[in-house]
């Protein structure tokens, strides 16, 4: 455990001084802030659903970007390899990196929390859907990031990692809209395909409905991905 904290604290110091991440978070904050302001202008009793939806969409790009340089990459120094020679368990390494990268996503989400407090301060909103959609967003991002981590463990080229994990997440997002695409007789097939979508579980959170099976999915899915990641790293 002490090894985990040593590594994690060092990684926090190193990764959080990267201007690259601050640049990305600035862009995301600008987009999400602008959307919120636009919504306020059109409807004073606005909710967070639009910026949160956009945050979930941006996560399709952000998660692959944050995971593309983890593990062994042909074009980068293999620090991960060195760490493994220090008898650190793969779990320690994976979790350290996972939590660091997740903290960046939460940093980007911070503007949504600020918007949440703004809404609570200046109106009397129904808190349940606001909280559930924020919670759903974080769970979705954890799932997306775990998929990207698994891709990163499997692929040695960082650009390929980005494209592979983006494609997987984007297809998963598109699957949610399968019933819209497959109309008529194929509509039931569309609904069956929708079941494969990660976004489907988040969408119910966005609507303010929290179901046990969605929570179970979000608890299990990232764990399975990270476990597979651990297996790949060991191999």
């Amino acid at each position, binding site marked *: 455990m002490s090894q985990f904290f040593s590594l994690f604290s*060092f990684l926090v110091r190193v*990764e959080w001084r*990267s201007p690259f991440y601050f640049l990305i978070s600035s862009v995301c904050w600008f987009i999400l802030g602008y959307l919120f302001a636009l919504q306020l202008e059109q409807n004073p009793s606005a909710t967070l659903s639009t910026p949160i939806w956009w945050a979930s969409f941006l996560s399709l790009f952000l998660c692959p970007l944050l995971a593309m340089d983890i593990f062994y990459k042909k074009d980068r*120094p293999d620090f991960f*390899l060195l*760490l493994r020679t*220090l*008898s650190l368990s793969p779990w320690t390494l994976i979790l350290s990196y996972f939590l660091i990268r997740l903290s960046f996503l939460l940093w980007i989400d911070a503007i949504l929390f600020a918007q949440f407090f703004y809404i609570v301060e200046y109106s009397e909103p129904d808190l349940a859907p606001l909280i559930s959609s924020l919670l759903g967003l974080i769970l979705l991002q954890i799932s997306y990031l775990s998929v990207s981590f698994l891709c990163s463990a499997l692929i040695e080229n960082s650009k390929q990692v980005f494209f592979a994990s983006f494609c997987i997440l984007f297809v998963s997002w598109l699957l949610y809209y399968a019933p819209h695409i497959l109309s008529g007789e194929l509509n039931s097939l569309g609904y069956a395909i929708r079941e494969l979508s990660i976004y489907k579980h988040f969408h119910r959170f966005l609507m303010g409905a929290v179901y046990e099976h969605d929570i179970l999915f979000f608890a299990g899915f990232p764990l399975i991905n990270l476990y597979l990641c651990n297996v790949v790293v060991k191999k």
Partner: protein
Amino acid sequence: MIQLQDIHFHYGIKPALQGVTAQIPRGKITLLLGPNGAGKSTLNKIVAGIQFPSRGHIFYGNQAVDQSYQLPYKVGFVGDQETVDRRFKVLEFLTLIGKLRRKKPSKDQLQRWIETFELDSVLNQHVSDLSTGFRQRVSLAAAFLGEPELLLLDEPSSGLDPYQFKTLCNALESVKENCMILVSTHRIKEAEELGDHILLLKEGRLSFEGSREELQALKNSRSIRLHLENVPSQKMEADLKVFGFAATDQKQIYEAENKDMREAIQFVSNHDELNVRSLGLKESRLEELFFNTMEEGKTQPLNIAVCEEEYSSMEPQSIQVKSALKPQNQQVSDHPKQEGQSSHEATNTETIARNNTGEEQ
């Protein structure tokens, strides 16, 4: 001591290591030599616990090393590619590595390796701002930190200037008593004085394991050097060529590759007019021995014991050749080494020498 037993490793269906059985003894520097793709880096990673063999076992003393991340020995590792995260500052990086070791190094130890590899001036610089040589020195300092029981250095000299390489050699000498050291390198010339124990890998198989003297003895059996007192006549030179002796840069010295010493003795005996100073087995530099072994096309492990046995069954007149298998310092020379003759030029086994009258001793 680490004992590798019948180690196999495959990348997909491509075999990288095929039945490697070798030792990495404590107190010695083991040189792992082999051409590109021989499996050196894979072997390093297996011993470092990063990869697990498809078949075979690793023993640390009597203890079998299981396939878990917790090795029974501490590893200091320098890989064949850069392993230092460039976003770190040098001091930050070394401190982190120190903290992650099971036995944390003291400040004095940290200072020792910083001074040894002359990193004082760059401690607060980011690794990304350093030259390749400095980055390699940071990797080396991290590897030596925390008294590792096993040092695995894959191409440790890359990026180092000759002075820094000497520093590395001294550092290895200073820690080798309590440490197992495995150095993979292509810079054989520089490393040949460093290695006490040599492993030659070829196509994933171990071609040779033993001391440099043993390798020398094996290779000497195939290369014969004839040193004459005078330049031979044209007729004699033709005879020498027919036998297989080729002239060297020095006109009085001839060498024959892949010839039986018994035939050479016979040849010399039949040519009384040859004014022989010495006839013996040629001493080669490690680099030559390496290339000879690689070019032989033999992939079966060479066994020094078998060679000894072969020699012991030879005819009495060539029995002295066997002495060539003994370490150099046990050789008895009839003629003192000539002034100005470098050690590798000299015949290490002046086993048969003839006096000026041509009488065989």
